[in-house]
């Protein structure tokens, strides 16, 4: 199931103990290492411990159970900054509901929340509508050097940085090691190979579905589309994010391929209603041999009681034949933003500085959390790389960002995922869906009507 029980979290941690020592020990040592780095900061803040500022952090649940990453970060931060108290406000888990609520409150002039955790695709929109503070006005350029390459560009709009990357996510290919080994198959490096392997396994009756992924009509569809489309060499927006440069021939190629996944039997027809949970369920239930999903899926698929447990391998996504391996992975994850009406901006900045710093990032990278750190120093730390298989292959993957620098991104994305979805379902031919997508994206980028 999708809820991770405490017992399950426990076993995940246990399986990792082999490599990282005990989960608690790993966390403690990470805190100690990071503590040295964070020390001057801690000394500075204890000096004026008299007046306590309380800031509110709005963040949706990150893990389903076990220790709460948000509270762990807050505790570590408060220990280092005794004069700042952080109050956690649990946001809705649905990204769209979360955004709707933030739009209502911030546009209504609310001073709280002070800091909010928001999707990586929000900077264009939140920047354009004054819903987030321009961090580059308050932080020196050097501050942003801590992040892995590309992430700051993704958090920017018109040259200003609105979000501080908190944790990163990206697409991975998960596969059933046992099934591949039984048929002497190698891990697919091209989409074509993936398709034929999936068909073979389905025809042999070893799995009900070959390859499951996210084809529903929602944001995740755009994520999956971007991977196929980038693998054809296509781009969505021009360099200034003001014009669509969608290439109809390349889109058609990508769409024809995903449609063929369904018609060949490599993927189920119902994949056009699959979001992450459905794809994850099919894979966990042993119904599928291949899965495209995010970082969290590795732990979920190996959780106790799942048919896939202990049989799961992870690899970078494949690409189309003739392109250089690996294929592209869409960037996901969450940034930290500051409410422009916040009364405690310096405290907000301290908090952001802490949890995107070495100590905060070590906390999130280590079990039981295992989120991909955004801080380059932490990411490239060999000890962190050794924590789990997805981290180990991070440096081999190639990333592609969604065209979220357009302030009209939601409409752009809708133009993409709705046509992607129609092509998968077969209700539009690949070429018809491609030309519809091209014209709708072009309209969406240039007009801010929303209709």
């Amino acid at each position, binding site marked *: 199931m999708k809820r991770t029980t405490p017992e399950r979290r426990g076993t995940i941690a246990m399986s990792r103990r082999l490599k990282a020592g005990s989960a608690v020990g790993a966390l403690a040592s990470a805190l100690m290492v990071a503590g040295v780095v964070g020390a001057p900061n801690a000394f500075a803040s204890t000096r004026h411990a008299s007046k306590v500022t309380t800031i509110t952090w709005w963040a949706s649940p990150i893990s389903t159970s076990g220790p709460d990453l948000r509270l762990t970060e807050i505790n570590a931060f408060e220990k280092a900054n005794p004069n700042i108290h952080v109050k956690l406000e649990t946001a809705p888990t649905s990204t*769209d509901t979360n*955004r*709707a609520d933030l*739009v*209502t409150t911030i*546009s*209504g*002039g609310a001073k709280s929340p002070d800091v909010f955790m928001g999707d990586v695709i929000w900077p264009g*929109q939140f920047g354009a*509508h*004054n*819903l987030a503070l321009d961090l580059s006005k308050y932080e020196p350029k050097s501050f942003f050097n801590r992040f892995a390459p590309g992430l700051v560009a993704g958090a920017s709009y018109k040259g200003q940085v609105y979000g501080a990357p908190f944790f990163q996510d990206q697409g991975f290919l998960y596969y059933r090691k046992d099934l591949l080994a039984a048929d002497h198959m190698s891990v697919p490096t091209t989409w074509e190979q993936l398709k034929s392997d999936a068909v073979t396994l389905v025809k042999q009756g070893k799995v009900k579905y070959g390859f499951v992924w996210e084809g*529903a*009509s*929602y944001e995740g569809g755009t994520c999956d589309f971007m991977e196929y489309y980038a693998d054809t060499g296509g781009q969505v927006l021009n360099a200034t994010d003001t014009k669509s440069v969608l290439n109809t021939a390349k889109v058609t190629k990508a769409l024809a391929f995903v449609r063929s996944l369904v018609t060949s039997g490599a993927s*189920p*027809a*119902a994949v*056009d*209603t*699959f979001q992450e949970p*459905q794809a994850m*369920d*099919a894979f966990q*239930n042993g*119904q599928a041999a291949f899965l495209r999903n995010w970082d969290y899926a590795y732990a979920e698929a190996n959780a106790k009681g799942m048919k896939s447990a202990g049989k799961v391998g992870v690899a970078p996504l494949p690409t189309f034949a003739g392109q250089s391996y690996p294929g592209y992975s869409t960037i996901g994850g969450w940034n930290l933003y500051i409410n*422009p*009406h916040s009364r405690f901006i310096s405290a907000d900045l301290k908090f952001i500085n802490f949890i995107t710093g070495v100590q905060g990032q070590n906390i999130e990278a280590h079990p039981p959390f295992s989120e991909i750190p955004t801080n380059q120093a932490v990411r490239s730390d060999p000890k962190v790389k050794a924590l789990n298989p997805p981290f180990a292959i991070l440096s081999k993957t190639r990333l592609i960002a969604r065209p979220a620098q357009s302030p*009209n991104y*939601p*409409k752009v994305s*809708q133009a993409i995922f*709705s*046509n992607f*979805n*129609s092509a998968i*379902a077969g*209700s539009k031919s690949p070429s018809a869906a491609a030309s519809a997508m091209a014209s709708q994206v072009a309209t969406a980028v240039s007009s*801010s*009507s*929303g*209709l």
Partner: protein
Amino acid sequence: MASTELAPGKVVAPPSRGAPPKILPDLIQRRYARLGWGFAAPALVVIGIVTIAPIVFAIFMSFEHVNVTSSGFSFTGATFSNYHLMVTSGLWQHALWWTVVYTIVTVVVELVIGTIFALVLENLTGGRGLMMALLLIPWSLITVISAELWSYIYNASFGVLDSIWPNALGTPLSATLALMVADVWKTTPFVTIIVLAGLVMIPRELFEASEVDGASSWDIFWRVTLPLLRPTIGLAVLFRALQAFGIFDLPYVLTSGGPGTSTQSLAILAYNTMFTDINFGPGAAVAVSAALLVVMMCLVFLRAFRQQVGKEEVPA
């Protein structure tokens, strides 16, 4: 217990009920009117204070260029462009068409099933209270959860219905039907309860008289029961239609308006335009358009059911 008719039609009403007697002297009439205003005032004041300002604001917003600035909303000039955009938008046209069809189909189906259910329950001699309590459960379920229940039932990986109805949410038509099934399950009880209330108030002697005339039960249903139920059915249809027209939670959770935008209702379109695309002007226009259409629907409806629903002092 005294008679408790939902809305007496002329057919049923004995002379002592219905229209106020005209014999009351003017003075008393006036005093009663003053008393009436006194009784109605608290409710009207509460409604006025809370709802009028935001509704006026929303209508105003729909005629403005709206921006969100660091100091809140800013309006940069009156315009009809929001409405122009809306009317020419394929999304709006589709949402309108879909919402209308969805409303008509679900209301008709719920009305037919709900009336049959009410007839059944009316004949039940024991356990009616239990059945009523049972019927109220789906109705009182939190819509978001009831939508999740159906998403669980339709789930393509482990849903119980998937073997019978594979990929229920996969195509526009199938997804619309799937939504209707979930809607009918949840709201038919509402219709049943309202119709049942009307049914039990039909005086029994009317049936007995027909029986003496030798009418078949089918005839009695069409010639006696149904005409007498008309006001009740009118009320049920009115409120169900209003609710169905504003449908939001169910498709928002179950299909997110998909596949594509094929099950996007007007309310979802308004919501997405305002809060997802952050375009308050056009979003407000969509919301106002939905309200306007409903009001027009109501007025047409009230005209048709004037005698029953808007009884007394309806201008001709």
